[in-house]
């Protein structure tokens, strides 16, 4: 068994612990929106590396293309023209899987091993185990996984787990012309991000900050935002993302409670039968009709 399988710390729909003895450094991809020129090199590099090709679409009156994430576009640039106190600002966000520490997709997935989390923090889909139910889409607070029309399996950014496993950075990180995307240990990335926030503050972005939402336990894709007080301005980046009460209930408490409940109904019935015996036609009535014979 390849070593990486030992790095799996969490596995969807699995009740027993995953092998977790081997520890690898926790990694993170940092997207510094203040350096991003929206060139889409990351989109191309992603498709090129992963050997996917989206459809050649149409123009919708915006630069965004493909317009949304798809099973073939695991990352897309989203462009927002926002008027701020500094005048017009063009906030361009690279959207894609955030690799949550507490991933909603993994929680929601009913297929054992279709969603896994490695000890380095990467949340990966294993399509051979995927059954195509789309529960991960329901579970994701960032609306990331996409169901393929071709094979009915879900796809999303793998943070190039295959590259990271051999010591390379993800394809989007490597290609990024301006260094808006950088990669390293999460610790280093937080430090790098803090430096960037300091520099942005000096340049007059008083509310610059890091986006590493704690509602999902932190993420392994983090943003530096010029306006961290307004994440929604970045094409609807959620302010406080979390798995949410519904998914928590559905994939949390409901499971044991319901299972137990059903077991109790069954057991209760069994006990009733044992204690009370069958409900048969009374002798009295039987006799009544015997007379008729």
């Amino acid at each position, binding site marked *: 068994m390849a070593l990486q399988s030992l790095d799996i710390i969490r596995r969807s729909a699995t009740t027993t612990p995953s092998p977790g003895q081997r520890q690898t450094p926790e990694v993170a991809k940092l997207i510094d929106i203040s350096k991003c020129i929206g060139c889409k090199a990351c989109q191309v590099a992603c498709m090129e590396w992963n050997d996917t090709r989206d459809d050649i679409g149409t123009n919708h009156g915006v630069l965004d293309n493909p317009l949304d994430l798809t099973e073939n576009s695991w990352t897309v640039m989203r462009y927002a023209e926002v008027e701020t106190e500094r005048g017009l600002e063009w906030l361009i966000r690279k959207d894609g899987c955030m690799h949550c520490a507490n991933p909603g997709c993994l929680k929601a997935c009913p297929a054992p091993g279709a969603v896994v989390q490695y000890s380095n923090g990467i949340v990966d889909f294993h399509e051979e185990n995927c059954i195509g139910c789309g529960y991960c889409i329901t579970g994701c607070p960032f609306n990331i996984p996409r169901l393929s029309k071709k094979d009915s399996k879900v796809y999303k950014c793998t943070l190039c787990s295959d590259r990271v496993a051999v010591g390379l950075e993800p394809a989007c990180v490597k290609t990024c012309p301006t260094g808006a995307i950088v990669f390293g240990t999460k610790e280093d990335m937080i430090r790098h991000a803090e430096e960037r926030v300091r520099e942005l503050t000096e340049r007059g972005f008083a509310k610059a900050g890091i986006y590493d939402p704690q509602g999902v336990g932190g993420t392994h894709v983090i943003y530096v935002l010029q306006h961290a007080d307004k994440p929604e301005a970045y094409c609807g980046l959620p302010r406080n993302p979390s798995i949410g009460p519904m*998914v928590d209930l559905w994939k949390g408490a409901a499971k044991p409670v319901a299972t137990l409940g059903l077991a109790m109904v069954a057991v209760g019935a069994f006990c009733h039968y044992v204690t009370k015996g069958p409900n048969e036609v009374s002798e009295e009535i039987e006799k009544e*009709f015997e007379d008729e014979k």
Partner: protein
Amino acid sequence: MKNDPKKILRYTPFERANHWLSAITFILLAISGLAFFHPAFYPLTQLFGGGVWTRILHPFIGAAMAISFGVMFFSYRKLNVITPTDKEWLKHVREVVDGDDRNMPEAEKFNGGQKLMFWLLVGCMALLILSGIVIWRAYFAFLFPAAVIRLASVVHAVAATIMIALIIFHIYAAIWTKESIDAMLYGWVRRPWAKQHHPAWFRQMMGGDK
């Protein structure tokens, strides 16, 4: 199969066939649904040819059950109107559970418990159909926002759990009440059975106030 001329017809062949269609589809749905619901049940997907087939089949089986259950609903909905007698019956349900039905109000074709069960199942079924459509990824889920899908997922799980519990109860009641299963299997019941469990109906079938 009417092997005894004195027996009473409780369920027509069509009713029986439809009931068992519902029953079978329900069992398949429960097994496959549970497989998605809790990892402990996931191996049940093997009965359907694996996870992917289970995922594909479940909603279609659901659609089949919805039709069959719908037929039942329309056939039985009038018979299941809850009357004051039924309410009285339900007030005394503890005695029934204890195995003492001597002081119970007279049950019609369906007793108060069965009628309550009927409406609970109808409610669950309605919720399951509606929420099932919302979360049917292949055809409909893309029409709904994530929040609705999340709610529907919970509704589906809760309604399914309740329904499974009700059906366990229903099956148990059938096992516990001897000869009930025969009624649904063969359609005919013995007169003593009818008089014992559904006196009002029995009288009606006998053509008067016997």
